[in-house]
């Protein structure tokens, strides 16, 4: 910018300017500047004079501090262009503020939906864990289960031979209701006619004095879903209190059961593991073997009816016995598999631990601690909202500033052009 130009002025020019200033100050100047001095004096004496009428009018307006005159309010109305410019900037500012507000609200609302986002990410982790677990469970190939996934790789990923999901929850973390809301979401394997065995492991903590109460709650839940307590162990006694349950519940009730168990009043979820195992191929193979055995037995019975020698009869009888044994075995296997599919196994472990602050799920208890907690939450959310609003406003502000700067530069250039073309 030329304003910062500190180039020294030419001495001749400086001397001339000094002479002009001296002339205007009434001081004598060197004879060589006489001509310029005369012109300077003539220019100075030719200054346009302010018309008296206008001077009076101006004095009055200034005296009124530019308030509109009572008889000519329109006379001092600012130029239309100025009003339009001001309105434009006001409208632009209001629009920018509105956009920023909307963006901030949307952003805050989006952050408010963080719980659902977390659920989504939880599902994502489920998939990830399931994949790794599938790899791990491939060690079960010897059992014939892995062959299922090997023979049906094109099926949906969730139909992998086995998968599990573990959702840990730190002790002293969110209250059971909160934990339940995040961990109690039912895990439903795809219902594509596949035979899927589901099981779950739930680890709970409870106050040492509440272990038996939690155990009773587990019994109640099992009863409500028509489940079975296969085995249970409940040990009371101070910090070493412990309870363990092996439950069987109808597979259709598994999600509900897990949800309820995750929201027990006096317990807190520390971890939860959901397992699924696809046994469709094993089931089909057994069913096929059963059909073959039955067909063989039918054939052997026909042959026995036509047998004429004792040796033939004895041989066929022995084969029939073998076939029937095979049929019985296959039927038992099918029955076991059906039972595994229809009933899901749940292992519940309850450990005594230092109790978290008592939280009443269904009561509206309110104290200083909870108030402080809520206040902290509110402040955190408010700070987050403010941060998001700032993040949204900064770019908007930058755009507005850029527009203002461009507008000012254009206006400045046009003014200078008007001066050049005048």
């Amino acid at each position, binding site marked *: 910018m030329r304003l910062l130009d500190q180039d020294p002025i030419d001495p001749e020019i400086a001397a001339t300017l000094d002479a002009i200033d001296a002339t205007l100050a009434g001081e004598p100047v060197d004879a060589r500047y006489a001509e*310029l001095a005369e012109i300077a004096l003539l220019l100075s004496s030719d200054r346009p004079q*302010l*018309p008296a009428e206008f001077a009076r*009018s101006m004095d009055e307006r200034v005296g009124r501090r530019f308030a509109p005159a009572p008889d000519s309010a329109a006379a001092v109305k600012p130029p239309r262009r100025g009003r339009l410019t001001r309105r434009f900037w006001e409208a632009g500012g209001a629009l920018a503020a509105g956009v920023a507000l909307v963006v901030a609200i949307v952003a805050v609302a989006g952050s408010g939906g963080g719980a659902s986002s977390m659920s989504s990410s939880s599902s994502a982790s489920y998939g990830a864990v399931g994949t790794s677990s599938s790899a791990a469970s491939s060690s079960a190939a010897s059992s014939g289960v892995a062959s299922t996934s090997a023979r049906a790789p094109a099926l949906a990923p969730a139909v992998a031979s086995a998968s599990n999901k573990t959702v840990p929850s730190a002790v002293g973390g969110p209250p059971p209701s909160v934990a339940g809301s995040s961990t109690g979401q039912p895990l439903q394997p795809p219902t594509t006619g596949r035979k899927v065995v589901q099981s779950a492991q739930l680890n709970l903590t409870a106050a040492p004095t509440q272990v038996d109460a939690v155990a009773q709650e587990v019994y109640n839940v099992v009863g409500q879903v028509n489940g079975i307590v296969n085995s249970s162990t409940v040990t009371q006694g101070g910090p070493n209190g412990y309870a363990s349950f092996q439950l069987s519940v109808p597979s259709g009730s598994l999600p509900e059961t897990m949800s309820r168990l995750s929201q027990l009043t006096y317990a807190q979820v520390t971890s939860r593991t959901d397992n699924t195992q696809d046994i469709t191929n094993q089931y089909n193979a057994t069913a096929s073997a059963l059909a073959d055995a039955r067909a063989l037995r039918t054939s052997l019975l026909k042959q026995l009816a036509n047998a004429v020698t004792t040796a033939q009869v004895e041989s066929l009888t022995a084969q029939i016995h073998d076939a029937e044994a095979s049929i019985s075995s296959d039927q038992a296997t099918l029955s076991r598999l059906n039972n595994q599919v229809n009933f899901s196994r749940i292992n519940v472990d309850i450990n005594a631990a230092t109790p978290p602050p008592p939280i009443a799920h269904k009561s509206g208890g309110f104290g200083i601690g909870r108030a402080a907690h809520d206040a902290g939450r509110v402040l955190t959310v408010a700070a987050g909202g403010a941060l998001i609003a700032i993040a949204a406003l900064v770019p908007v502000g930058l755009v507005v500033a850029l527009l203002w700067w461009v507008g000012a530069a254009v206006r400045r250039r046009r003014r200078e052009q008007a001066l050049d073309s005048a």
Partner: protein
Amino acid sequence: MDHPLVRSVGVTETDTLFRTGSGTGSWERFEELYRSSRDDVYAYVLTLLRDPAAAEDVTALAFERAYRRRRTFDRRRGEERAWLFGIARNAALDELRRRRRTATLVTDPSEDVPDANEGDGAEVALRRTAVQTALARLPAREREIIALKFHAGMSNAEVARVLGVSESNAGTLLYRTMEKLRKACNATA
């Protein structure tokens, strides 16, 4: 001639001051500025626009704008007079732009030449007329610097601040314009 397109200093709306604390002090400062600069602003604007009616409007508008923005004045960015003349300059240039949009102003410089003072001798009157004619034929940008220097009575530093150029640049502009005037006067003579 090099005419950098830079902004007049002290005219931004983000400046601060003119305030001496109370509103009354602020008003007194403004009134003092008005009293000391009214005639100068009018002379400057008239020389620039060469239209008395428009000069009156622009002068009034400049003072009104200055009054409205008096709290945005920042002394660190220049003196009050330079700030005021910056506002007047912008208003005058806006008027020139408006004129250029609405109609082309056809002006015969000789019509703008005021009459010589009655008290002048014949030679002085002749010389004065030559100067007035030469001034009227100058481009607006050069008329402007003459107006700021000789009609508004500004120092070279103040002229530089109003034009938004360096003081040496303003001095050079003034020198060249004066030389141009001198040659034009001699040619007329």
